[in-house]
Structure formats: C-alpha cells, structure tokens
C-alpha cells in the first residue's frame, strides 16, 4: 500500500529522516515509535505531502504523493489540532469532512452512531464550537472524523495522548476492530509502548531519522521495546 524508497528529509544540511526502504502492505496496522526527534511526525508529514522530501519519494497505492494528489480521496489523517476547524461544532465538522468524502448527512449520522460510546456524550449536541472543547475531546472528534468515508489509509499521530484512560481503552478497541474487520491500513505513532504493541501487528522503531527495528508484534515485543528504550 505504502512504499518508501530512499526517502530523506534534511533541514540546512541536518538529516532528520532517512529511510532507505519501507513497505507497508495493505491492511496492516503499523506502529511507529521513537523518542522525540526520531522523525515520526516528519514521516507522517511527508506521507501527507505537507513537507517536501529532500530526496526519494513515498508512494501511496503507487501514487507518488508529492507529484499527484490522487492519494487524497482514500487517505485520511489526524495529526494535531490544526486538523480541526475551531469555529465549527462537532457535527458541522463531521458533515464537512463527510461532504469532502462523498458522504451525505444521513451517511455521517449513521456512521457516528457506532461511536456513541467513544464520544461518551461529550462531543455531539454539546452546543460548543470545537475550539472550546478540551484537548481530549478535540482529539476524539478529530480521530473519528479521520474515519469518515471508509478511507483505505488512516494516519493517526499520537492518538492516545491527552485521552482519559477509558477513552484510551475504547480507542484501542476501535483500532483493533478496524484492523480485523476491514482492509484499512492504519498508521499510528505513539510514545506509549503498551498501547502500540497491543494494537499494531508491526512496529518500527525510528531513531534519529533511521529505522533501527522492524518487529512483527508478538508476546515478547513489549519487553524487547522496553529493553531497547531503557538504554
């Protein structure tokens, strides 16, 4: 689904990301971990064509992302709050994203029903603009919006951060569900090793812009990761 070749990004001669090759097959749940500055967000930004690669390219379903925009219809993402439109209510925001993804209002309403639990009555009909919601609730709205319209690729940057424990558990369930019951390719970055090992079938560790580990998740993975980061 996603294939990276000779990708690098440098700012003023300092390389912040350098991935020779990386293939993420369709339907995989892919986790990206690494300390701050490892290049996780840079990688996602490159994947979304928000920054330009210094060399190499990323292909999303064989489309070079920096050359064509045809990947946009089947890719969706939530990176940070700048993916929310602050002056809309949550409903308006969902309908707007729905509009962009060819979903009618009824489709979106139907879709949102399955996430009532996740929203925990804090998102819909709150009579508040998104900008006035708490960080955690903003995140909930953003994550669910990224799932509207059955995208083939979903990219979530640190989805667990800022969420309360209950919501974290519910989010894990949602991601696992997506992974098992649909063909969605899910890319997640996280600082929480426990969560990421729980929901991702494959985990790649980035360090200073390079991939240092590429693990198919198993019982031993968490220990292996903890050992690695406890250096």
């Amino acid at each position, binding site marked *: 689904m996603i294939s990276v070749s000779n990708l690098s990004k440098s700012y003023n001669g300092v390389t912040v990301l350098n991935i020779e090759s990386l293939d993420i097959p369709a339907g995989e749940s892919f986790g990206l971990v690494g300390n701050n500055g490892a290049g996780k967000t840079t990688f996602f930004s490159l994947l979304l064509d*928000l920054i330009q690669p210094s060399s190499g390219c990323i292909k999303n379903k064989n489309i070079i992302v920096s050359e064509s925009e045809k990947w*946009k219809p089947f890719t969706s993402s939530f990176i940070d709050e700048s993916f*929310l*439109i602050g*002056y809309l209510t949550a409903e*308006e925001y969902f309908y707007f994203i729905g509009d*962009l*993804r060819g979903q009618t209002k009824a489709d979106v309403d139907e879709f949102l029903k399955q996430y009532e639990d996740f929203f925990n009555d804090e998102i819909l009909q709150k*009579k508040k*603009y998104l900008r006035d919601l708490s960080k955690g609730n903003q995140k909930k709205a953003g994550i669910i919006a990224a799932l509207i319209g059955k995208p083939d690729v979903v990219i979530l940057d640190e989805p667990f951060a800022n969420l309360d424990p209950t919501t974290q558990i519910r989010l894990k369930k949602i991601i696992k569900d997506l992974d098992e019951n649909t063909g969605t390719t899910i890319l997640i970055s996280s600082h929480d090793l426990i969560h990421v090992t729980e929901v991702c079938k494959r985990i790649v560790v980035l360090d200073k812009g390079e991939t240092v580990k590429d693990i198919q998740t198993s019982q031993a993975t968490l220990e292996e990761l903890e050992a690695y980061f406890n250096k």
Partner: protein
Amino acid sequence: MFKRFVALEWKQFSRSSYFQKGIAIKILLALGALYFIGMAAFMGVAGYFGLQKVMPDKDPITVVNNFVIYWFLADMVFRYFLQQLPVLNIKPYMVIPIKRSTVIHFLLGKTSVSFFNFLPMFFFLPFSITSLVNGDYTVINVVAWFFSMLFFTLSINYLNFLLNKNNKVFYGILTVLVVAGLLQYYEVYSITEPAGYFFNTIYEKPYAVVIPLLLMVMLYRFNFKFVRKDFYLDGAISKKTKDVHTQELTWLNRFGKVAPFLKNDVRMIIRNKRPKQVLFMSFIFLFYGLIFYTQETYQEMPAFLAFASMFVTGGFLMSFGQLVPSWDSEYYKLLMSQNIPYREYLKSKWSLMVVAVVISFILSTPYIYFGWDIFGMIAAGALFNMGLNSFITLYGGVLNQVPMELNVKAKAFSNTQGFNPTQLLIALPKIFGPMLIFYLPYKFINFETGIICLAVSGILGLVFTNFFLNQIEKVYQKQKYKTIAAFSEKK
C-alpha cells in the same frame, strides 16, 4: 529585565518567516520608508517657506496649528489600519519572577518604537529648526511647541492601542468623529477653529506643554490599567463560551461542489471576531464615495472618481480577499491533506467576493442621487472588481503568508492586524488599474468610453475566469509548502 525582553523580541522578529521574505521586497520597503522620511523632512523645510510664500501675512506656525488637527485625525485613522501592534505573549511571564508592571511597561513601551511615531517627527523637527533659523521666534516657544507635537503624536499612539483592544473605545471615538464630521459638513459647528485656537494657545504659552504631556501620561496609565486588569489566566487569555447551535445552511447547497466551502466561509465570518470586523469595515467603505462625489475639486479629476467608485463596491472584496488563504491558516494542514480540489476552494472564496460586490452594488443605488454618470462609474467599478480585482486580490493573498488568529479573544496580547507592507505593494495595481483603464480612453475619447472600457475590462476578466483561476491555482500550489510552514509558525 528590559534588556532581556528586547533580546527576546529581536529573536522573535529576526526568526519569523515574514522577515525571511525576498530580499527584493525588503529593499523596496526600506526605500519606501526612506522616501517617506525624505519627503517628511523636505516638507518640514519646504513647508515653512511654502506657507510663508502662500500666506505672507500669516505666521507659518499659526497656519500649521490651524490645520494640525486634520493631521492628527488622519494619523489616527492610518494607524488604526496600518500600524502593527506589538505582540507579547504574556502567559510565559506570569509564573516567573518578573513584576507584572515590568512586562506591561515593556509591552506599551514597544508600541512607542514605531515608524508611525518617527514619521511626524521628521516633519516637525525640520519645520521647527527652519522656523528658528529663519523666523523671528522665541526659542522656548518653538521647543515647547515641538515637544507638544511629540506628546500629541505619542498620545495618538497609545489611543490607537486602546482603539484596537477595546471595542467600546473604538465605537466611542468613531461616533465622536462621525458626529464632528457631520457637524462640520453641514456647517453647524466647526471643530477646526477651536482646535486651531487650542494649538495656538499651546504655542503661545510654552508652559502649556504640560497639557499634551499629561494627556500622554493619562493615556499611558489608562492603557496600563487596562492591560493590568486582565493580566490573569482567566482574564485576558481565558475563553468564555456560550451555547451555540449547529447551522445546516442547506440553502447554500445550490452552489454544488463549492457549497461545503461556502458554508464554512459563511460560518467563519459570522462566528469569528476578526472577519466580523472586516465585514463591518466593508460596510463603511460603501460611504467612501461621499468623500469624492461631494467635493467640487474631484469633479474635474474623473480618474479619482473612478478610483472612488471602485472602492464603493470593493470594500469586502479587498479586505477579505487580501487575507485568503490566511483566513484558513489555523487549519491549513487539514485542507492540504483532505480530499479537497484546490480549485473549488479558490472558487468558493472568489464566489463569496463576487457576491459581496453584487450586494455592495445593490446597496450603492442611492448614489444615483449624484447623477447617472457617477452611478455608471460605480457599475463599471463593480464589474472591474468582479472581473479583475478579485483575481489580483486572490493572487496577492497567497504572497501574504501571515498566520491569523480568527477569534482574537485575548486581543490585548495578540496581533490584530494581518496587514503588512507587502499588501501595500500588491495594492498598487488595484488602485491604479481602474484609474488608468478609465482615464486613458476618457482623455483621448470621452467620458462614456472611459466607463465602457472599465466595464469591458471587468467583463473580459469574467469571461476568462477559468483561465485566471487556473493561474492562481498554480501559484497557490507552488507556494503550498511555504504557506504550510508559515502558517504552522507559532503566533
């Protein structure tokens, strides 16, 4: 402590993306500033001799005093629109051991170091010196007069700060100005005379310099108190929320593909402070024609009438359009990664601008009172706005990569003006375009041809809408990464 603040400010300035713009623009801006300074200095020296020549029986300083009120009023208006108010994010300073008053003094002091404060001095200083050298004046009077002018200028500076931060003050002053203007216009009461008397008295009695000094200190204290009062987390930088309702705006669905964007734009305008202000200002622009159509002088200068006519219907178009895509800077990454065809996005903005021109045009029908010639000009100006100005403005917008906070609650501590000198450069074709398109045929053929040419230029623009949108789309695409980077810069 001040030294550290200055160092921080310098870093913020020199590291912003705005500063890293093309060297050519920087040179142009520097030249522009030098030009203004040179002109002011020249006016100071030449102004003295000029006034002496034109009105030999009058004292030049008295003449200046009689009219200086207009200067100060104009200064106030210009500052409101052009002066960038300094930004100082106070939150980080709240918990570290710095006295609040120090932070506020610095914030206010920063406003004093502005081009707008120096420029008048470049006039008053050479004017005062020339007066002393050539005229028969008492040194103490002239020096006191100069300082009075300096203090008045700084008073305006602090008043402008309040105007920008406090809506009550803004509407209060606006009302006073409008009332004074109307009284003057209908010759009920003229403020010019008492104002002239006032300034002359200050000149004649050097100790009266304390009046402007006190005014300045008072305004400064007032600003200080205003900021001080809100220096709390739940004060100036807190958010107050009230219940809001989801608006479907289904009536906009008829616009097809553009509809989702139009809906958002409409919501943006009615739900955020900054765009509301723009909407208000564009309404004021409707009255712009009154200044020109009522003056005998301008009847002989139809090029200026053409310019004014363009402004009557172009207020919203220009003030809104010049900040596309800045309006969407807060969520620009979303727009860039979502399934959004750039063209639809641009077209939605363009449609909004065109609709605004049409509405302004309908509202401008009372201008028929000034004759069909004038109204014809407004109509031609509206066409020019729709067909050409809209595209020039959209083109200019992308070069203006200033991130904007849409709903500036913490007004006193954030930037309220997305306006910058680059905008002025882009404004040139908008202003001189209609003047030239009208004036040349008018000069060589006749008035009607001038109007027709202006109208046709707009219609041609409309015919080539697709072409223009394509071109602008390309510029936007090209600037994409730069724009994203500039918009994600911390404000």
